[in-house]
């Protein structure tokens, strides 16, 4: 990935640093590395940055920060290797799969040619990566779905799926946050609450984090969900080494 990213104006108050039209963890790492470097540069006039799969959108005030100065700064960070890859935070996230918690599990297992128990074991094996958060508050798009697990989205989206739904849409997995519409296949739910107003932190996951699912029994749901509502994050942070 030696391609130079393109700097694309999004109107007068945002700039997209575009690393290419691909879904790739390597590309996504470069996006997050630039986000971190730009954050550290603490440039007056930068309002916020939004990392997505393959681009970093920089929102800025053009009356404080002239766009050519922003572009030169970004180019400098890219050229001088300041945008180095940071170690990711890795979270262990409890999840209940199947039954009422994941109404599409059996159909997904069937499509993958596995029985549901093997399907869950295969699904929870990878370390997932939060490529971006978008669509709804705290909705985390995850990459690293096992081969053969991709599923076309539902022809008719459901009007509302529960908060914390763990689902598959295309080649992506996701942890939902708030209740909302979805055309993705529901495998399970986490009792953890990724976005809880009034709690510190407001959001459990950030773009660039890593996720490991820990299956728990449906009989544990009540106690875990109650603890989460009291503000217990339920998720467990595991230190990881920096990776190239």
């Amino acid at each position, binding site marked *: 990935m030696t391609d130079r990213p393109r700097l*694309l*104006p*999004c*109107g*007068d*108050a*945002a700039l*997209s640093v*575009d690393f290419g*039209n*691909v*879904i790739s963890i390597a590309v996504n790492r470069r996006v997050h590395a630039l*986000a971190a470097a730009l954050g550290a540069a603490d440039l007056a006039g930068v*309002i*916020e*940055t*939004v*990392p*997505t*799969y*393959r*681009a*970093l*959108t920089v*929102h800025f005030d*053009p*009356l404080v920060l002239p*766009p050519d100065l922003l572009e030169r700064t970004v180019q400098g960070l890219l050229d001088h290797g300041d945008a180095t890859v940071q170690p990711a935070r890795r979270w262990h996230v409890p999840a209940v799969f199947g039954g009422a918690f994941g109404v599409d599990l059996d159909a997904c297992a069937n499509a993958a040619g596995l029985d549901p128990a093997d399907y869950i074991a295969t699904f929870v094996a990878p370390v997932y990566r939060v490529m*971006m*958060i*978008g*669509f*709804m*508050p*705290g*909705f985390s*798009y995850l990459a690293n779905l096992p081969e053969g697990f991709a599923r076309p989205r539902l022809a008719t989206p459901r009007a509302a799926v529960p908060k914390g739904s763990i689902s598959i849409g295309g080649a992506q997995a996701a942890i939902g*946050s*708030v209740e909302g519409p979805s055309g993705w296949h529901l495998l399970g739910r986490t009792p953890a609450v990724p*976005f809880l*107003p009034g709690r510190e932190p*407001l*959001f459990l996951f*950030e*773009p660039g984090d890593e996720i490991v699912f820990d299956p728990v029994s449906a009989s544990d749901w009540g106690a875990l969900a109650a603890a989460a509502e009291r503000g217990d994050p339920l998720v467990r942070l595991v230190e990881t080494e920096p990776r190239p």
Partner: protein
Amino acid sequence: MTGLLVTEIGPGASIQDHGRAGWRRFGISTAGAMDRLSLAIANVLVGNAPDAAAIETVLASGKFQVADHPVLLATSGPGVTLAIDGRAIPAGQSAEAMPGQTATISAVREGVYGYLAVAGGVDFSAEMGSRASHRRSGLGPPPIRVGMTVPVEAGGVSQPSPLRLATVPHHDSGPIRFIWGPQEDWFGAEAHDGLMAKGWTIGQRSDRMGVFLDGPSVAPVAGSLVTDGVVPGSIQVPPAGTPVILMRDCQTTGGYPKIATVISADLDRLAQVRPGTPLNFTAVSREEAIEALRIARVMIDGLRPEPAIRQPDTSRLMQTNLIDGVWGGSAQA
């Protein structure tokens, strides 16, 4: 409690300020007033900061009964007027309303969004740095409905003194200006020409999330765009070729190619164009867009209201006991 009891309101009315910055990386939309200039006008007329939270109405009129304490009120928006107990307040002027009186914000006769500001501001607690309501995520104050009381901060004002603007700024007319990109290379020459052509109208489905455009198809070339960031003003085009201009309530990311982006300075007046109205576009440079934004900011910073000459208010005269000792107290019984 000082506040405004909602006795009549149209659908879509909400509390708005400048919006919720800093949380877009977590999927939090900024929301905020659809017309920041109008929000600023109403606010400065009651002595508030230009970006304080106020009531935003959509097309329809609204009525509010004043609770325990007098309040100072002002309205703004294209063709929007204020009346207190039926008494029309001159345009560009705030007015005091007494407990029990009814303040009416008229329908938005020449636009879409109207604003009612109250001195001290509305007393909803800020959530993630803003009092803006975002319908889709449920963040911010609840939607404004009949029967609810909109609380007023700091107990309103003890000595309301109406203000006026000698001239009330209004939005420019002329084409809506955009900057090409970020994905103009996903569109052929026909689509580029189509966007610049005459014959667009604002679609009926338009709302705080997006302005739908009816007109020629400007479909992108075939292909699958990997989701990236969007901004208010992004002109995104789904495969069917009907563009949608994202507005203040828009999501933070999107997967449709964006042929162009409406400049920041023109978002206010775009929001005020009524469905069914013809609309033209013109491409400008980034430098022109920034100069337009500078002018828009100067206009808001330059809003300097002056004390208004009080209009005779017969309703107040009626409430004030001017005749005791002449005719005795029986007239007040």
